[in-house]
């Protein structure tokens, strides 16, 4: 590093940072830049599929659009509560910080639940993937069953794109849970895994998808065991960057996937 040192108003002396901030934050920005390319590629693939496929379906009735709009409102509200958590953390108000983080997690969980319900309804009505088991005792609607057969690109791209986003939101909730509650979050996460696993029927993709929570619980247990620490304002800010990014991605998925495919 440079030999020069810069002193500011705070009673510390440090080397100048190339980007004017701490390395953890730069690392998160680099990760988010790479992740934005992942979502960019998925959104481009969806758009390309739509352009190149005749008879692209418009399956989202007003109930789906209302549901997706409420989901969007939850995500936007979660971004507000997240930024208030960051504000509380820099003001060293630990109680408010924890409460705002929990509020953010609650909004994120509401988003995941509503999204899961939307997926379950679509699958039950026949808009499904070959890898998803059929829903017993539920007749597929002719409209959606036809879409799955004639335009398989739609369910493939829809479930990949929104599933990837749902996974990011779920991991974001876990990330915030660890920052807010540290080791206390592990039993909560295991309880959530058990509830998600037992409460979903065996034909639901979420029955197996719930095991993501178990895997994540094992990983964070190892991390917290190897490197226990108290998370400070920089950790909250970095977690916030991730959370806002998840919100940001949805701002493109919502119009491109839902609004452009609304049944009018």
């Amino acid at each position: 590093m440079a030999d020069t040192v810069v002193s500011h108003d705070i009673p510390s002396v440090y080397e100048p940072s190339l980007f004017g901030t701490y390395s953890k934050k730069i690392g998160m920005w680099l990760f988010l830049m790479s992740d934005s390319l992942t979502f960019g590629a998925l959104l481009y693939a969806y758009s390309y599929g739509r352009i190149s496929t005749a008879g692209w379906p418009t399956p989202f009735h007003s109930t789906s659009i209302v549901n997706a709009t409420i989901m969007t409102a939850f995500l936007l509200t979660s971004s507000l509560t997240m930024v208030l958590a960051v504000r509380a953390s820099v003001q060293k108000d630990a109680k408010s910080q924890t409460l705002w983080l929990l509020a953010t997690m609650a909004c994120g969980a509401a988003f995941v639940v509503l999204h899961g319900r939307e997926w379950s309804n679509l699958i039950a009505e026949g808009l499904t993937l070959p890898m998803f088991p059929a829903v017993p005792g539920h007749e597929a609607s002719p409209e959606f069953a036809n879409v799955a057969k004639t335009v398989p690109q739609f369910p493939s791209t829809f479930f990949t794109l929104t599933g990837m986003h749902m996974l990011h939101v779920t991991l974001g909730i876990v990330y915030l849970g660890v920052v807010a509650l540290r080791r206390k979050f592990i039993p909560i996460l295991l309880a959530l895994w058990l509830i998600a696993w037992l409460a979903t029927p065996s034909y639901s993709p979420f029955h197996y998808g719930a095991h993501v929570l178990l895997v994540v619980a094992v990983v964070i247990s190892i991390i917290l065991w190897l490197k226990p620490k108290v998370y400070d304002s920089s950790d909250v800010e970095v977690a916030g960057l991730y959370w806002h990014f998840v919100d940001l991605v949805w701002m493109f998925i919502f119009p491109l996937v839902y609004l452009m495919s609304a049944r009018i």
Partner: protein
Amino acid sequence: MDATQIAIAERVAEEQRHHKKAQFFWVWGALLVITAIEVYLTYQNMQPAKMLAILMGLSLIKAALIIGFFMHLRYEISRMKWITMCSVVACLILMTIFFFPDAHRIITLGVK
């Protein structure tokens, strides 16, 4: 974190202490209003290409608000702002160059 990183993090936190709470509520309100406009436009029977252009324009405004205010990029030094944004935009432009000439060909010639 080592002492250098802690000092930088403290300076960043010190700068953020002055951010007004009301500003975040205004941004949140603006994001909700833009979302409501998007949903309203969906039911206005516009040409798909025109609607796509408007919706993507509104989404870019929402993205700028989130990145600028919620992710605090507005308050970072200009080197950080330019390097992060230019590199992402450059990569997305590259994707566009690869994807859309063929998409344009399909639109022009039809699906075969």
